[in-house]
């Protein structure tokens, strides 16, 4: 068991390295930071352009640049932005902002998604099932940037009808907010609700569809009938035997889901003015900054792989056959 998880972990570390290398190479090959610099008005002197080129190691071949950058990363130094600010200083704060959004979003998404899926499977072809199906179809067809903006409009409407700003949808805290930590918590919560909803709703829709069909497969199985025949109540049979089996294929989906989440998070952060990793990616690409782009890619890769690894652990916990092999 420990060997299995360790092997997977090593596999994931290699994948993360390759992914980051690829992103770094692609970014270095397509970005033209000097071109951006030269377009400034008034144009900077040739000497400073030369200095910039040296600073960015543009005279070296790309693999060598990657090795230099990666060597820094291993020691906790993610390099500097084009505007010559250290990335490491900003990284911690941005990761915190993004993780708060992602973890809350995915937890709510998985919890309610699984619940919704199970309920619609058990009550198949009832009104609630049709309603849940329609709900997830509509949500799955609504991209995050539309959903986020619609939620923003909805929050504005609610605020207007109440008369105070209960749901705040700009930024993650009120700038210059004064108060004790409890009031701070309240302020953060007010900012958190609408963006979290934007992320969680899509996740709920996504997971509930798969949970529904995997639960339906289990519902028709023999072992569930046997469990009830030997005297378990329907509820106990469904949750102890049925749900556990139906969750197994879901475990691998969580890794997929996280990739979706990161992309969705980029839109959510931009729409609601959160300065997290997703926002940084867009800024980085717009500024043609290789170091920022590679750092965000590394973050995405680590997130996806960690959730993939977690999925493996879950898989092993749910399915005894994995543990034996």
């Amino acid at each position: 068991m420990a060997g299995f998880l360790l092997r997977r972990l090593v596999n994931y570390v290699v994948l993360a390295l390759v992914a980051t290398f690829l992103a770094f190479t692609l970014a270095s090959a397509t970005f033209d930071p000097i071109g951006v610099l030269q377009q400034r008005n008034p144009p900077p002197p040739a000497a400073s352009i030369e200095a910039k080129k040296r600073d960015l190691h543009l005279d070296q071949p790309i693999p060598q640049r990657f090795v230099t950058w990666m060597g820094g990363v291993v020691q906790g130094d993610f390099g500097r932005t084009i505007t010559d600010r250290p990335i490491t200083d900003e990284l911690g704060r941005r990761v915190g902002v993004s993780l708060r959004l992602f973890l809350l979003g995915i937890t709510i998404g998985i919890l309610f998604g699984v619940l919704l899926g199970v309920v619609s499977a058990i009550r198949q072809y009832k009104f609630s099932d049709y309603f849940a199906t329609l709900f997830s179809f509509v949500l799955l067809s609504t991209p995050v940037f539309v959903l986020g903006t619609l939620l923003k409009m909805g929050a504005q409407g609610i605020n207007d009808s109440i008369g105070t700003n209960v749901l705040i949808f700009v930024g993650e805290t009120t700038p210059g907010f004064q108060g004790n930590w409890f009031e701070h918590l309240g302020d953060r919560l007010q900012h958190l609700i609408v963006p979290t909803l934007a992320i969680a709703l899509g996740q709920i829709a996504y997971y509930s569809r798969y949970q529904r069909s995997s639960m339906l497969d289990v519902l028709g199985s023999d072992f569930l009938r046997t469990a009830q025949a030997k005297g378990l109540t329907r509820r106990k049979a469904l949750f102890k035997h049925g749900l556990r089996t139906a969750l197994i294929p879901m475990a691998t989906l969580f890794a997929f889901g996280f990739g979706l989440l990161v992309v969705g998070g980029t839109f959510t952060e931009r729409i609601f003015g959160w300065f997290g990793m997703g926002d940084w990616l867009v800024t980085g690409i717009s500024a043609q900054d290789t170091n920022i782009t590679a750092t965000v890619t590394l973050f995405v890769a680590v997130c996806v792989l960690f959730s993939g690894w977690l999925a493996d652990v879950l898989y092993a916990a749910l399915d005894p056959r994995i543990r034996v092999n």
Partner: protein
Amino acid sequence: MTVILNEGDSAGTTGAASGSPVDAAPEPGKAMTRGRLVLIRFARNKLALVGLVLIVAMYLMAFVGPFLTKWSYDQQDYTAFLEPPYSEHIFGTDKIGTDMFALTMRGLQKSLIIGLLVALISTTVAAIVGAAAGYFLGVADKALMWVVDLLLVLPSFLIIAILSPWFRGKSWFLLVLMLAAFQWMITARIVRGMTLTLKEREFVKAAKFMGQPARKIIAKHIVPNMASLLIIDATINVGSAVLAETGLSYFGFGVQSPDVSLGTLIGLNAESATTFPWLFLFPAGFLVVFVLAVNWVGDGLRDALDPTSTRVRRKEKKDTKEKAA
């Protein structure tokens, strides 16, 4: 009436699976061909029919729509800035006085063309690569599996966004190629799995022993037997391609001006959605309704083409019971 539900042998309407003995079933007297069966099943699904009508209507609208208004997308009405919808401009106008209906139609046209092209290209590539990988196994197969794994870590959104400075100012067709280049892998993996089982079937072996070259076996026996999967996949891919394109365009990483797509329109107007909702709601509405319609049709096709899907089987059992009674 006997309905043959032969698992795994889901040939399209072409009758290409004539090598399989079981498929020769419907006698010429009875008009129940597989094509008709699929059509009847599809027509039974109300949502799928609604979706189909919507898709056809939207493609028609995208090309006929621009002629329905006297305003053109590049023409300004200096007497109407930021006007909400009224008789002269049925979708309102933006801040420089452009007719929103003309703009939305133009955006819709671009988004729908991109979606269709990407789906066609990516499904074709997926069929060829997946079948070849599954048939020959070996290095190509390993490479394919690995690339799919890598894509989970490095979302295609990220890669295309990184590459966007490179195709800025070039033809939008490059964007189509980029989107297609990253959409075929997961389908290819499914195709590979199906090829692995198909390759053991008698009709493939027979062809092989008769001396057919591998290229012909793949083209004549393996790919046609996955027609239903490919049709479903191509349909769903239209939706995901449109979502991917609009997502990239939202940030300015996709379709570039002077071209307009639903994504660029939504991206430009999302900020002002709370004050000037018509700028955002019309393009967003078209996007959501289109993707929703595609998903409905995809779902209906899956039920109609895939005999193993539970819903159809249950309904059919019920139907035959009712007929027997």
